[in-house]
């Protein structure tokens, strides 16, 4: 049986980060990826902020295949007919690494895995790990079909469904409440058309998030990101809500595309790909055991995703946790100790840096974000107020407070709204 200093399962951001750091430190690392190439199985919104990636690959934007920088960020409330947006654009010149980068996973993951190979690790694509080798409660390697690969340290970076961590008892089966389902289309449009419609040029890009009718009021939202010559458009919805209402995400994305404000932006575009993926959204509540004898769990497999409603941070958490796992394994090699006790340093590292700190800070967010008023009532309310303020029926105008109270109508009281706002303040 071939033996490695470390084996990493999955070549997403978490796995690539872990493998890269260990290979750089001189370890003999094997990465196994079930996709035909790294990225072949992955999709996302998506954009990430640069600083964490920059720590791993300094100056990465000089060579990484990103689509555009985020120079405009818009958040919109949608009803079936209206849209009310907060559109943020800044001309403050940020250092490159602080920007938001819009990327496509099939290209970006491939690039990351090439960096991993350059650092000396073996990246074997097209191989799905079926099981872990466990002897006397200690993980000793992995099984791929009839083949086995041995290692004292196995890093699980196998993403949201992490069948392997469930198999060895690090976590229980997930509940539909802990998951959101994302569906997305790539819609191709000529580059000039995108730049014209979104009012951008060069490598500038737009990130847009939507709340309201795009999910028919179910917990979740819509998104749109500009790529170089396509847009990524999708919806994200609580899995349990799809079950309860029997609404399909595939219908929601069609409605979303047909919303007057969206249809105008993607007019004439050709769908080129349709994808779907889950997101673990319950944070600390659903976090599995992060380590055991000979094994560490990183990224989505460890539910390390921060969703505050407006932003979804998965990539940075994946990279940071991959790096922390790698440092833990490097130290374990130095001490020749791969026991649970030694590997507990992984969790300590995550506590010291932003990963577990942020999840702790926003630990009330998942519960707050289940409040249906956020997706139903408030988008309606905001848009109907705007409609009243920005239109005129020729009669004297009422003051804003009165408009608000009338718009709220019987659906909710001012008190309820105030209480939601206080809760939002605490949770977010």
């Amino acid at each position, binding site marked *: 049986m071939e033996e490695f200093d470390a084996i990493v399962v999955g070549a997403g951001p978490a796995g690539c980060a872990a493998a890269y750091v260990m290979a750089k430190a001189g370890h003999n690392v094997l990465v196994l990826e079930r996709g035909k190439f790294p*990225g072949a199985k992955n999709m996302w919104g998506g954009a990430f902020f640069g600083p964490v990636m920059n720590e791993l690959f300094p100056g990465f934007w000089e060579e990484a295949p990103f689509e555009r920088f985020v120079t405009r960020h818009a958040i919109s409330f949608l009803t079936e007919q209206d849209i009310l947006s907060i559109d943020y654009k800044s001309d403050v010149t940020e250092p490159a690494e602080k920007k938001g980068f819009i990327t496509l996973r099939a290209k970006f993951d491939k690039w990351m895995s090439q960096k991993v190979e350059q650092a000396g690790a073996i990246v074997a694509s097209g191989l799905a790990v*079926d099981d872990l080798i466990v002897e006397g409660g200690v993980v000793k390697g992995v099984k791929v079909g009839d083949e086995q690969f041995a290692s004292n340290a196995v890093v699980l970076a196998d993403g949201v469904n992490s069948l392997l961590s469930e198999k060895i008892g690090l976590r229980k089966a997930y509940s539909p409440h802990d998951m959101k389902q994302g569906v997305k289309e790539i819609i191709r449009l000529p580059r000039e058309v995108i730049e014209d419609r979104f009012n951008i040029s060069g490598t500038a890009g737009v990130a847009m998030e939507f709340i309201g009718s795009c999910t028919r009021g179910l917990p979740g939202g819509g998104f749109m990101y500009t790529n170089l010559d396509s847009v990524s458009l999708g919806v994200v919805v609580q899995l349990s809500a799809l*079950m309860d209402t029997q609404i399909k995400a595939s219908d929601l994305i069609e409605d979303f595309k047909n919303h007057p404000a969206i249809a105008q932006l993607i007019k004439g575009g050709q769908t080129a*790909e*349709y994808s*779907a993926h889950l997101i673990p959204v319950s944070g600390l509540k659903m976090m599995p055991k992060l380590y055991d004898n000979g094994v560490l769990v990183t990224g989505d497999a460890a539910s390390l995703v921060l969703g505050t409603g407006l932003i979804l941070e998965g990539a940075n958490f994946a990279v940071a946790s991959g790096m922390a796992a790698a440092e833990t394994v490097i130290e374990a090699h130095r001490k020749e100790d791969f026991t649970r006790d030694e590997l507990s340093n992984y969790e300590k590292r995550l506590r010291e840096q932003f990963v577990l700190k942020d999840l702790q800070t926003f630990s009330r967010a998942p519960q707050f974000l289940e409040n249906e008023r956020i997706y139903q009532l408030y988008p309606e309310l905001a848009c109907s107020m705007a409609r009243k303020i920005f239109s005129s029926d020729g009669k004297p105008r009422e003051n804003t407070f009165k408009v608000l109270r009338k718009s709220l109508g019987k659906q909710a009281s001012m008190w309820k709204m105030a209480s939601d706002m206080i809760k939002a303040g605490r949770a977010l």
Partner: protein
Amino acid sequence: MKVEDKLALNKFDVDRDVHITVNDVVCVECELKPCVSVCPAECYVIRENHMTFSYEGCLECGSCRIACPKGAIDWVYPRGGFGICYQYG
């Protein structure tokens, strides 16, 4: 645009081995059949009161596995290299 037309745009390397099997005997007793609404690829279809499943268009999201209340779904990933192969992601 219909889901099947969207799936036709995707690149798949369909394996002869089936990676998901559904114990449709159990489905008879399942009232809400949530697999039907959660599957973004419409792999679960009820035909003449009977659950039919086809794995070819599966996007490997894992939703059905989590949503099935009866444990009727035997779910693993396709063999390495097979299944959905995103070109954009």
